[in-house]
């Protein structure tokens, strides 16, 4: 249930900051007309439940999401993407209770793949993680404001981040569909090309990968490996997930050398496995009793950084220029958190029709009773 409050018009934005309802930046004041327009943009009713966080006893409704999306500065046509991101965050696999409370201080990294990204102006090109693009800045911000205001993950309250990272303000970007035969993320994940998907992962901050005059695929990817398996990254040797954002030049080198995305995933997953000696030499203790983060080693004695090839997402985006890409690691191993992908439902799309038989299903227990 949404609650209305009255305040002085001139002081409203300041009052929102004073009451701890913002991320520290001024917000757009959520008046009823703005919130209704946001809900219309998503094609949802205010009381629609997007999901719950049982351990925090919190329920996120579309209405509260719309209020926070207005505050973040979203336009109504961004709202279907905000809704999909929140539905992903509220999936039990994402573990919002753990991810939003942890000292690890993760960003809610949002990757949008599909035509809707282009339609609303989400940036997939130069300055990918930087300022200047309203959709990128405000969609991620809306999700963070919901985490703070609705799920209760406020700094010093139920957000125990030690360092956090700047992506906690907003870390949202689009994918630039790659040239054939490579496939966009949504197709790699099994969705249709005409769909738009949102993938949300609790991550550390992005790390740039610079490799400027390298025309050999394997040599280029060894640079990627060097940053991915640095033991200071928490998931190294513990089996996690990650996102590789391949800039245009690096994509070109890999495709030109005949590499598929599957081969890139397989190579990076294999090459980022670490030996006990590598971890110990970097000061990471292995033999601590009860150290839950470590997995049993593989038969060859190595530990995975990326749990499996399916746990590494290959996304094509970024600006032309000298060779840059980025790596965004999950903040914690798979046993605690997982990325979730949701298809974006355009506003007004009807729910699937289950057909005339849907009312005729008889559960086994009921049949026995009859």
């Amino acid at each position, binding site marked *: 249930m949404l609650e209305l409050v009255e305040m002085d018009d001139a002081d409203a934005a300041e009052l929102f900051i004073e009451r701890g309802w913002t991320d520290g930046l001024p917000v757009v004041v*959520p008046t009823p007309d703005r919130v209704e327009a946001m809900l219309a943009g998503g094609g949802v009713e205010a009381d629609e439940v997007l999901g719950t966080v049982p351990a925090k006893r919190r329920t996120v409704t579309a209405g509260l999401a719309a209020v*926070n999306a207005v505050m973040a500065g979203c336009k109504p046509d961004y709202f279907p993407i905000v809704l999909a991101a929140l539905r992903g965050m509220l999936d039990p696999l994402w573990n919002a209770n*753990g991810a939003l409370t942890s000292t690890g201080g993760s960003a809610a990294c949002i990757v949008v793949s599909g035509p809707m990204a282009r339609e609303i102006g989400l940036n997939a090109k130069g300055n990918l993680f930087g300022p200047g693009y309203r959709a990128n800045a405000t969609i991620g911000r809306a999700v963070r404001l919901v985490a703070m205001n*609705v799920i209760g993950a406020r700094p010093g309250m139920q957000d125990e981040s030690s360092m956090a990272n700047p992506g906690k303000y907003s870390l949202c970007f689009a994918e630039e569909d790659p040239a054939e035969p490579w496939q966009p993320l949504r197709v790699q994940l099994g969705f249709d090309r005409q769909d738009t998907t949102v993938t949300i992962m609790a991550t550390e901050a992005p790390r740039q990968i610079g490799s400027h005059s390298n025309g050999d695929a394997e040599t280029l990817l060894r640079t990627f490996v060097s940053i991915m398996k640095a033991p200071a990254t928490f998931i190294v040797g513990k089996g996690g997930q990650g996102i590789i954002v391949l800039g245009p030049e690096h994509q070109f080198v890999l495709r030109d050398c005949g590499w598929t995305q599957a081969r890139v995933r397989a190579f990076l997953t294999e090459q980022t496995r670490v030996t006990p000696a590598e971890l110990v030499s970097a000061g990471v203790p292995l033999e*601590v009793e009860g150290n839950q983060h470590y997995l049993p080693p593989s038969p060859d004695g190595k530990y995975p950084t990326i749990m499996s090839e399916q746990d590494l997402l290959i996304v094509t985006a970024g600006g032309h220029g000298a060779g840059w890409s980025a790596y965004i690691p999950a903040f914690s191993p798979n046993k*605690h958190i997982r990325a979730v992908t949701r298809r974006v439902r355009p506003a007004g799309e009807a729910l699937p029709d289950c057909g005339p038989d849907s009312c005729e299903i008889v559960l086994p227990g009921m049949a026995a009773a009859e």
Partner: protein
Amino acid sequence: MAKIIVYRPDLVEEVLPTGTLARRRIPAGGLRITLLNNGKPKTVPLLTYVSEELARHFPVTSVTVHSKPSAAFTIDEETAAGLARSSDLLIAGLGDCGSCSACSLQDALQLERLGVPAAVVITDAFVDVCGRVAVRLGFAGYQPIVVPHPAATRPDAWLKDKARLAAAAMIPLALPLAGTAAAS
């Protein structure tokens, strides 16, 4: 000055009905202690030392370790019910991070609501977060057992020393005073 009407963006904190701590008692046959291990480093030795200290004061028939698959999740209701049936005292830990402290505290409070005395062992950095979670769960004032942070990097002798102090702190909170044990 002109007034405007706006929506509140937050959820007003929902507080559970005030919980009642389980009755503190020692069964005639002695205590069945369950150590609810969240998998954080040094949890099992630390909690084991705590149980050994308790055994110096009370009859203990068994000490069982139940390990959670992840420190970042709470136990489900079925697991809690099973632990309640098999335990006279549950000791959860080690809360030495944000999510694991909150989850271990919630695990302990689930057992309290099911009638089993429970204690949660955390490091001192997470007293505040546990205090806030306890209020939200209807157990304002519930006192965790606190050891210095960090514990995960400490040698065995340090763990034994802190376990001794933790057990001493636990007795008046989770168990009848030693002198009254037989009468409880």
